[in-house]
């Protein structure tokens, strides 16, 4: 289909042809033509956020909870620079989003015009690719290519910079089918010899572990399904990074829980002691590996990743495999089955893991008078686990506790800023998820400090009647910073508290939402149910213990087998034999 239309109309037409029905954005002078085109149609719904950063996070979470591409629209200059944090977040977590930014007219570029910024230059290192479109005739093709690049290979954010005169001018529109194909075609299938080698390793392993990551989620639902099949067929234990939670169900009996700096004892010990590590779509992030020269010293390591630059970047592996997770797992299952579905007896290993599990690393000292943050999440989990539930988080202690105490049975249910660790992510993310899933329970597990970073989005929640629940574990501290200062910086609590917090109940009411405050453990269950049952946005101010630390913790510069455990489980561990640590 080719026809003449304005650049602004092309943006809308191309979005429709790409199957987009929702975008997040904020208008401004340099994108007014596109906003005018949006006004004159009904196929694409525009969600007006209150800050451009929130538009990007909402688009990211929309993408993560649906498997579709997230789309955002911002204006030039400050609109684009406000988008930078979100773009970087999406880049580090490999989230497919397409961002359109307005730009001053082509003839004004370089003159320091009003609201001009070198958006392409600024966003070059924080996008997978970006384009400045100078000719309306090239616009449609560029948009189709942008969707292709965002979703192909390792997904990521892309940006299209749209000068205002290009939006006004007429040009020829081409549909996605007619658009020139990009040469960018990452390899999906792995070499069969490598698959064979991996099957042979699986047959020989005595202490195997699957170490999975966000790549499984990004590869789509088929990848999670195949992963479950592989785990059940081999009987190997499985752990996951923060990004990969839900790919394998938390209720599965092979599940070790999350690994890493605040991962579970059994998961980290299994990583340290294994003889075969199969990394599936994770990237040996520094929060996972701890001290590199002591990382899983005795294991053969296989690594499956769609991005060749992830292989051997941090950890040298024995069997690097480039390919899409779903494709590779499908081939692996086929090959391994055709070789006779063989595995060694790993019962000694499972026994060992059971012993590690018996340490009960998540135990904490509960209180009758103060709500412990772990208790709040345990109760929340207990009361909501069967529900059609999506969870987003901010960044900090609450995020780690959420990862430890909440169980995810399915992929795409857990939205958290992993790589960049963006405080302020969770609230706009909950909005993006709720827009995509209007009838589901969407809860942002937050800390009060993170939440305040994007609290203006209360306006968005109210305007679109999005019943997002803001479950704020309020310790009046920057909890994770405080924890590090206590453990590593001589208990000098430099700037890690706030003594001017708002009254969150009144704040909710000021926006027209519901506010709930709870400080007594006895009232907690009722208060949580009240939050869940309320039909509309809720700010839940959960006043928790102020000085609770998040354990287990691999202290900086330490290997996996030197974890710090919380007081409760440390006492137990020291009593039992095989005591470790500190």
């Amino acid at each position, binding site marked *: 289909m080719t026809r003449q239309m304005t650049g602004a109309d092309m943006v809308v037409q191309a979005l429709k042809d790409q199957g987009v029905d929702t975008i997040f954005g904020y208008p401004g002078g340099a994108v007014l033509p596109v906003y005018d085109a949006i006004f004159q149609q009904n196929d694409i719904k525009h969600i007006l956020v209150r800050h451009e950063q929130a538009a990007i996070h909402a688009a990211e979470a929309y993408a993560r909870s649906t498997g579709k591409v997230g789309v955002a629209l911002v204006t030039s200059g400050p609109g684009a620079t406000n988008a930078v944090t979100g773009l970087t977040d999406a880049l580090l977590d490999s989230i497919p989003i397409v961002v359109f930014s307005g730009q001053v007219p082509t003839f004004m570029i370089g003159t320091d015009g009003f609201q001009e910024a070198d958006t*392409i*230059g600024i966003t*070059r*290192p924080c996008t*997978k*690719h970006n384009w*400045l479109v100078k000719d309306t005739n090239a616009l449609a093709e560029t948009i189709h290519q942008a969707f292709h*690049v965002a979703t192909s290979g390792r997904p990521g954010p892309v940006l299209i910079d749209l000068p205002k005169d290009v939006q006004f001018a007429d040009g020829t529109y081409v549909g996605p089918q007619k658009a020139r194909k*990009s*040469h*960018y075609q990452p390899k999906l299938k792995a070499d069969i010899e490598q698959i064979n080698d991996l099957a042979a390793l699986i047959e020989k392993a005595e202490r195997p572990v699957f170490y999975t990551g966000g790549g499984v989620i990004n590869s789509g639902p088929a990848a999670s399904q195949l992963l479950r099949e592989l785990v059940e067929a081999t009987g190997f234990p499985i752990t996951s990074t923060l990004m990969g939670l839900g790919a394998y169900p938390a209720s599965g009996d092979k599940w070790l829980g999350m690994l890493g*700096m605040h991962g579970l004892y059994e998961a980290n010990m299994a990583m340290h002691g294994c003889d075969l590590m199969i990394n599936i779509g994770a990237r040996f992030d*520094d*929060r996972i590996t701890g*001290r*590199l020269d002591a990382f899983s010293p005795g294991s053969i390591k296989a690594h499956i990743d769609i*991005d*060749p*630059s992830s*292989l*051997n*970047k941090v950890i*040298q592996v024995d069997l690097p495999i480039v390919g899409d997770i779903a494709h590779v797992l499908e081939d692996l299952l086929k090959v391994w089955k055709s070789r006779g579905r063989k595995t060694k007896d790993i019962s000694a290993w499972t026994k060992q893991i059971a012993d590690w599990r018996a340490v009960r690393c998540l135990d904490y000292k509960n209180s009758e008078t103060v709500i412990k943050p772990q208790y709040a999440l345990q109760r929340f989990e207990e009361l909501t686990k069967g529900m059609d539930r999506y969870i987003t988080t901010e960044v900090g202690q609450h995020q780690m506790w959420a990862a430890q105490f909440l169980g995810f049975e399915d992929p795409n249910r857990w939205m958290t800023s992993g790589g960049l660790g963006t405080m302020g992510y969770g609230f706009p993310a909950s909005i993006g998820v709720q827009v995509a899933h209007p009838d589901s329970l969407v809860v942002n597990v937050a800390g009060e400090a993170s939440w305040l970073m994007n609290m203006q989005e209360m306006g968005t929640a109210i305007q679109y009647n999005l019943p997002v629940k803001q479950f704020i574990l309020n310790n009046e501290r920057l909890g994770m910073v405080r924890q590090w200062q*206590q*453990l*590593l*910086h*001589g*208990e000098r609590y430099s700037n890690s508290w706030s003594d001017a917090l708002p009254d969150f109940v009144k704040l909710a009411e000021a926006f027209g939402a519901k506010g709930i405050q709870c400080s007594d453990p006895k009232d907690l269950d009722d208060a949580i149910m009240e939050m869940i049952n309320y039909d509309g946005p809720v700010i839940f101010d959960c006043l928790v213990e102020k000085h609770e*630390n998040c*354990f287990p913790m691999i*202290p*900086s*510069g*330490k290997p996996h087998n030197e974890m*710090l455990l*919380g*007081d409760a489980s440390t006492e137990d561990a020291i009593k039992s034999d095989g005591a470790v640590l500190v």
Partner: protein
Amino acid sequence: MSALHIKKGSTSHSAYELRDPNGEIIEKHTLAVLVENEPGVLARVIGLFSGRGYNIESLTVAEVDHLGHRSRITIVTTGTPNVIEQIKAQLGRIVPVHEVHDLTVEGQSVERELAMFKVAGTGDKRIEALRLAEIFRANVVDSTLESFVFEMTGTSEKIDAFAELMRPLGLIEQARTGVAALSRGPK
């Protein structure tokens, strides 16, 4: 849980592993990168090197296929073997990059650089400069009564050697293109 009492300045204060960068062998490699000749592509390549802390010893770029919109970027870089592998993988990930070749490992290659030298002087020094230029097969592309501009093509080492010789003879300015390189043989 009380404080861990970690010594000040210890790497344990950081969650990042602080490694000794001098512990490994550094290699020099010449990479040929074929790219789509579109605006900003050079900035993407250079930004990758600066953003990830890689070295650029020399870099040349020019369009080599006008109809196909292809440019060739030749980069001489240094790093540990792992870093070199990582550089190639990262380059390959840039969307407008079509091919990445490591000429240092993919068989033999020829490398050449073009340089120009302005040498000013009179008397014996001037005669000596001209004599050495002949030995090095440098051409005189500009001359006045008290100066020459020499032009020469060769390996970077040859050009370095010539520059060293010209220095005491009145070298006042030089311009170099950086390395261009091709693999040897029919393919």
